């Protein structure tokens, strides 16, 4: 009996692992038929960061739907397949494999996030998957990655713009600046950029404090900053911890000018914090929700048409989604009728100061560089209107040695 049990055990291992075995060989060309284009998207829909992934995904989905309703791209309708990676690398890799080999998509719009995209670099390159990652790490374009196109301003650019604003626009004399950051890849990038820029201006950062994404209270950080008489707080974090920080600061009657990067430059901060956000300034590479530009009008109309309530979502992320899909669709259009992963890449590389009507700054890629723009804009919270209102035009950081 023991013998039977033993061999059955081994057989069971084999059977269980073989359970998935129902696939078939895949063709060499993929994702494009006479009248349709299969597109994939890997973006978090569930879990702690779903609030970020959902509006961006909706923006992409709604844009492709709109394009389909107006005849598609070169006569082909885009069919978007959205896979949820729960912001986990293994799930992102399995979603990638599913999209490429099961659904046979032409391309995948984004890969989930920074760790997921880095883990997929080899596969992206191997299968020629044109994509715009929803992250802004330097590794994405240095060294040059032929199929990765970065959209937006890097964290370095955004932090530099904050310091420039403090020093040149606010004309601060001996400012006492501190950094509050999340212990994440982008948080550390922001911290390093802040250190570098402070050094360039000959300033010593007063303190560097961690405020993690799941934090529900920022008392220790706020009290420490207040004790050090910090006037300007440069943050590198997401919307929820920024809301926590601003509300905690209000509680302790502490009102420094606080700066946030694009992931926290959203109307939601103003709506949640109200007066607590009155000294909050954000940097972003997308247009403001209330901007009177053709691009932002289109974004608002898309949201309205698809029942996306701006009061209940991160509008800046929705705007990024629309911008991403618009750029990807333009690249597809420029690839022409003979749409392949390679011609798609070539089409994207012809974008030269491509205008989205104010959704994102003009987009330029070439065959040697897929680096993002160095242009962004500063917004200030307007608690009476519940929005982040632009306070500068699109600008680049000041050149400094």
């Amino acid at each position, binding site marked *: 009996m023991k013998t039977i049990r033993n*061999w059955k055990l*081994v057989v*069971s291992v*084999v059977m*269980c692992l*073989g359970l998935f075995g129902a696939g078939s060989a895949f063709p060499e060309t993929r994702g494009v038929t006479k009248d349709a284009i299969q597109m994939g998207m890997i973006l978090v829909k569930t879990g702690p960061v779903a609030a970020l992934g959902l509006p961006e995904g909706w923006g992409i989905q709604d844009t492709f739907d709109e394009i389909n309703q107006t005849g598609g791209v070169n006569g082909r309708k885009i069919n978007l397949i959205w896979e949820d990676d729960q*912001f986990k690398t293994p799930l992102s890799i399995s979603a990638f494999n599913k999209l490429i080999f099961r659904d046979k998509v032409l391309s995948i719009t984004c890969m989930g996030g920074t760790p997921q995209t880095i883990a997929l670099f080899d596969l992206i390159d191997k299968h020629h998957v044109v994509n715009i990652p929803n992250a802004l790490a330097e590794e994405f374009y240095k060294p040059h990655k032929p199929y990765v196109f970065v959209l937006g301003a890097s964290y370095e650019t955004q932090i530099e713009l904050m310091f420039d604003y403090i020093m040149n626009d606010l004309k601060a004399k001996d400012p006492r600046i501190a950094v509050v950051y999340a212990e994440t890849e982008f948080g*550390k990038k922001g911290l390093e950029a802040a250190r570098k820029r402070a050094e360039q201006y000959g300033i010593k950062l007063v303190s560097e404090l961690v405020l993690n994404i799941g934090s529900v209270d920022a008392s220790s950080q706020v009290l420490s900053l207040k004790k050090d008489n910090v006037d300007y707080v440069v943050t590198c974090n997401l919307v929820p911890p920024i809301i926590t920080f601003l509300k905690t600061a209000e509680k302790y009657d502490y009102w420094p000018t606080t700066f946030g990067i694009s992931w926290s430059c959203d109307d939601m901060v103003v709506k949640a914090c109200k007066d607590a956000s009155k000294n909050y300034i954000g940097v972003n590479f997308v247009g403001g929700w209330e901007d009177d530009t053709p691009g932002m009008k289109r974004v608002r109309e898309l949201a309205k048409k698809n029942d996306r309530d701006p009061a209940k979502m991160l509008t800046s992320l929705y705007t990024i989604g629309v911008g991403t899909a618009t750029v990807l669709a333009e690249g597809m259009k420029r690839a022409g009728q003979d749409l392949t992963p390679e011609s798609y890449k070539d089409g994207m590389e012809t974008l030269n100061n491509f205008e989205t009507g104010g959704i994102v700054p003009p987009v330029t890629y070439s065959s040697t560089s897929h680096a993002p723009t160095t242009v962004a804009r500063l917004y200030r919270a307007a608690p009476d209107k519940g929005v982040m209102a632009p306070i500068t035009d699109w600008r680049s950081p000041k050149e400094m040695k």
Partner: protein
Amino acid sequence: MRIFQTIWGKLWLILFCLALLSLPLWADPYIIYMVNISGIAVIAAIGLNILTGLTGQISLGHAAFVAIGAYTSAILASKLNTPFWLTIPAGGIVAAFFGILLGFPCLRLKGLYLAMATMSFGVVVEYGITHWDSLTMGVRGISVPAPTIFGYTLGDPSKLFYVTIFFVTILTLGAKNLARTRIGRAFVAIRDRDVAAEVIGINLTKYKVMAFAISSFYGGVAGGLYSYSTTYLHPENFTLLLSIEYIAMIIIGGLGSILGSIFGAVFLTAMPDIIKGFADFMGRQFVFLHGRYDEEWNIAAFGLLIMIFLIVEPTGLNGIWTRIKTSFKNWPFTY
């Protein structure tokens, strides 16, 4: 082959091995990748089942051992160019070392206190890999080069598949045999009643620490394979949630059963696809259900399954499988 004594046993084994080994020739890479991550989950779940199911020592820190193994392999491979056939066992050995370190202070702890201690260990490890930038690259993550053997790259899932299957087979057979040895029986005796076990001559210190060491070795090997499979490690991959997933695997599969670990690991890995497939099928049958599928269902199903199995089927999938087998064996009799 001694444990496959009958001709039928050997024949079936050969047939299944052939079917399995030829999988990369006929299955698409998505399936191969899923088989790989199932295999990795199988190894980790077996390791946890040795500690929790066989020895009765609950652990909420298993993800930490997987992380230690994964980072050991990744660091050895990326910084010292060590070959994968050394880095993966090294991941297991380093994890086992930490398992021993954790095992000693946990000797007197039971139940909730042991759960808290192991969970805290997980938090410490997560903190360590996040902050030891010079070694682990912290939140930037660490890239893992593709494994190679004799100049031949095994980075592709279809090639890594053979490496995974090799380790799954060896470690599954090892665990099955372990359960039948004096060591395995000592583990079970400790689980059933540690005082009684000590009275009959079982050295509690030795065997409890050994259980921690073996369990963490399995976790470490799984971590090593994980690092090659994902090619990029990040501290966020090894949170408490992963430990809970492993606990769920052994509960759903069947506590104390090696076969149960396999069932549980494969079932939970495949569950999202099963639910989605079922939802698609239902959507085709009933129009009002079409397009209703939402990823949140997976999370709800995950929690619901644990509840159902704990209440209705504590022996897990392995218990169901045993009952089905027995029914067929006894048919047409009901006893």
